[in-house]
């Protein structure tokens, strides 16, 4: 025997691994097996990918409410490929739901749950519930506003369940409110309890599939059996590769936002669950008052029960998939129902407040800028300065890097804006046609730029920049202070969101004396679009 063969022989005689792999790969499958049976393998692959990316995220994640958010920001903004890892984990979760549902749909359509495969189906239903449990518990872990308020809704729904509700809520640590205990429980479930449970359930599921064999279709009994390897393995591999390619592209291209740190005192936040829970969210709205429990607990519980009992409800003989019109109609109805509920939920959800559009997965140094400097960003964008200048990282362009950290004085810059070639002989820069006050804001912003904050300043959202421009034009700073700049004749505007509602501030703009008798503030009748921006700007100011 050659060396390699001897090694194989030794390994197999001591561990039996080769025989096991061979038995696994050369299993007999029915002649009708084909592309429609790839989804189970894809689901298993996605689960393993989730475990892999989840473990990597855990290497840089601090699972306490105090640090979770900051450590995730660190992963997104500072760790190499951190954004990709989070993208893979986030979209992998969504994809898993899709694939698990496709897998169940296929099994349902083909009637593959029928005797003797009832147990396989029921374990599969449990696996689907476990997949949803991952989604529910993982949703809280970024600990941003979205995570926090989504979980508040979920735990409240759980607490409505008849009899067991209060106990369930206590078990989830969310009896009175979502807090540190809830976080610890959700994290524990997500990374300690659910993964081994999933592995065990998958093992049982796969064992049962092997025990009973892949479900045959009518007509298979007269056709020769096929081998699992290599043709079906090839099909599974292609399907897995397509799923992975879609996942990878989504992780790279579709941005996963991070909202502001969870704020339990935020009364304006509108909670929204993850897309795959939206239909439940909508079902809830159909029932009001004492009937709410019907939509939130009883209907979902009945649906799960019906799913579990499918093999016992349908006990007819195996028929061809093309003859299973009733099953097909059910699937179509379910899809339409789900789609309609989700569509209504999406359509009727109010537009998120402007402040929720801030992407906290990027540096947010701009929050510390004074209104003058913020308004400068507006003119900086309006004048397209970056078409000729680099700012921090990026390919070198014609003009000098504006975030080099060495600055001329503001007076020099303003003179240069007006007469570029007078200050820098040979400069190809066109003169900037702005008023002195506007040039001043531009200079103020540029003075603030340095290599460390360039990214964090440029990520300032447009609404805040435009709000600051309105603030500057209205000369609000001659009576008010923001971020330590301005005059304290009127109240300091940092922290206004703690003191007032947005509606109050809008009304106050229109008629200050009506709301604060004796106020010296003149009325400002901004058009609605401007009003929205200035108020949104004031409400994102740090406290």
């Amino acid at each position, binding site marked *: 025997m050659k060396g390699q063969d001897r090694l194989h022989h030794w390994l197999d005689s001591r561990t039996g691994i080769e025989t096991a792999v061979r038995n696994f790969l050369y299993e007999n499958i029915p002649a009708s097996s084909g592309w429609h049976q790839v989804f189970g393998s894809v689901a298993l692959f996605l689960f393993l990918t989730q475990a892999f990316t989840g473990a990597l995220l855990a290497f840089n994640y601090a699972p306490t409410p105090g640090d979770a958010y900051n450590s995730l920001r660190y992963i997104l903004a500072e760790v190499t490929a951190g954004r990709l890892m989070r993208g893979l984990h986030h979209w992998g979760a969504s994809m898993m739901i899709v694939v698990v549902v496709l897998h169940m749909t296929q099994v349902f359509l083909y009637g593959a749950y029928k005797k003797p495969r009832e147990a396989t189906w029921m374990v599969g239903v449990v696996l689907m519930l476990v997949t949803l449990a991952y989604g529910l518990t993982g949703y809280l872990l970024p600990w941003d506003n979205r995570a926090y308020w989504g979980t508040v809704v979920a735990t409240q729904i759980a607490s409505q369940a008849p009899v067991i509700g209060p106990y369930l809520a206590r078990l989830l640590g969310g009896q009175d409110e979502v807090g540190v205990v809830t976080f610890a429980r959700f994290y524990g479930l997500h990374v300690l309890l659910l993964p081994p449970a999933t592995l065990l359930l998958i093992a049982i599921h796969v064992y049962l599939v092997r025990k009973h064999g892949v479900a045959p279709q009518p007509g298979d009994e007269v056709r020769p059996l096929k081998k699992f390897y290599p043709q079906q*393995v090839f099909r599974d591999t292609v399907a897995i590769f397509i799923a992975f390619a879609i996942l990878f592209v989504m992780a790279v291209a579709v941005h996963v936002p991070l909202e502001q740190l969870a704020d339990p005192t935020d009364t304006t936040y509108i909670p929204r669950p993850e897309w795959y829970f939206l239909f439940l969210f909508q079902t809830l709205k159909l029932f009001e008052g004492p009937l709410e429990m019907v939509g939130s607990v009883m209907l979902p519980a009945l649906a799960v029960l019906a799913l579990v009992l499918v093999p016992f409800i349908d006990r007819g003989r195996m028929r061809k998939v093309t003859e299973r019109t009733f099953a097909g109609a059910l699937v179509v109805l379910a899809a339409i129902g789900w789609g309609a509920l989700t569509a209504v939920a999406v359509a009727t959800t109010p537009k998120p407040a402007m402040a929720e559009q801030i992407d906290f997965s990027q540096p947010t140094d701009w929050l510390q800028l004074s209104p003058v400097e913020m308004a400068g960003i507006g003119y900086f964008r309006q004048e397209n300065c970056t078409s000729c200048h680099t700012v921090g990282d990026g390919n070198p362009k014609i003009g000098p890097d504006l975030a080099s950290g060495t600055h001329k004085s503001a007076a020099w810059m303003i003179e240069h804006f007006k007469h570029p070639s007078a200050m820098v002989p040979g400069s190809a820069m066109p003169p900037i046609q702005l008023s002195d006050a506007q040039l001043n804001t531009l200079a103020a912003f540029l003075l603030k730029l340095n290599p460390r904050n360039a990214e964090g300043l440029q990520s300032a959202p447009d609404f805040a920049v435009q709000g600051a421009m309105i603030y500057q034009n209205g000369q609000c700073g001659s009576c008010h202070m923001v971020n330590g700049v301005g005059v304290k004749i009127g109240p300091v505007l940092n922290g206004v969101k703690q003191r007032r509602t947005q509606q109050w501030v809008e009304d106050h703009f229109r008629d200050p004396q009506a709301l604060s008798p004796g106020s010296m503030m003149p009325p400002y009748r901004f058009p609605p679009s401007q009003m929205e921006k200035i108020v949104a700007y004031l409400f994102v100011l740090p406290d």
Partner: protein
Amino acid sequence: MVDVPTAPGTSRRGFYLTFIYGLWGLIAAALAAPALLYLLLPPKIRRGSEWIEAADVTQLQPRVPVEVVFRKNRVDGWKITSEKETAWVVKLSDQQTVAFGPQCTHLGCAYHWDEAKSEFLCPCHNSVFAVNGAVISGPAPRPLDRYETKIQDGKLLLGQLRQSTGSKA
């Protein structure tokens, strides 16, 4: 075993195997490469070297060390902590102002300035340093460590503390 693509069945088998191994190879590479980058590359440091204003150079007496206490941000992963730091600032000449780290280079005790003798004295094991940080006597193995310094508009700015080189001689 080598698959010889002769019979139609064999060539189809070869086609399957190529794809199975090829696609799994691509998936493994697409997961392993980012994972290695994620684990092995140092994180981007956004809040790099910070310069802290420590003293007004014009107020310093020549060759009279002053103990300066300042706060500095320490970045540790996702945690930024503000820490108290100390430096001994000495204007050695009009051109040169230096800032020493506050610990003796022997075992890290805090030393102090002995005004009578114009020397830095470490109480732990009697290491003695000159006003320029050089070791005069005692067990200290090297001169006092210095902060990176720069002067801007008459203010002394301190950067990172650098371990001094050279021996006691």
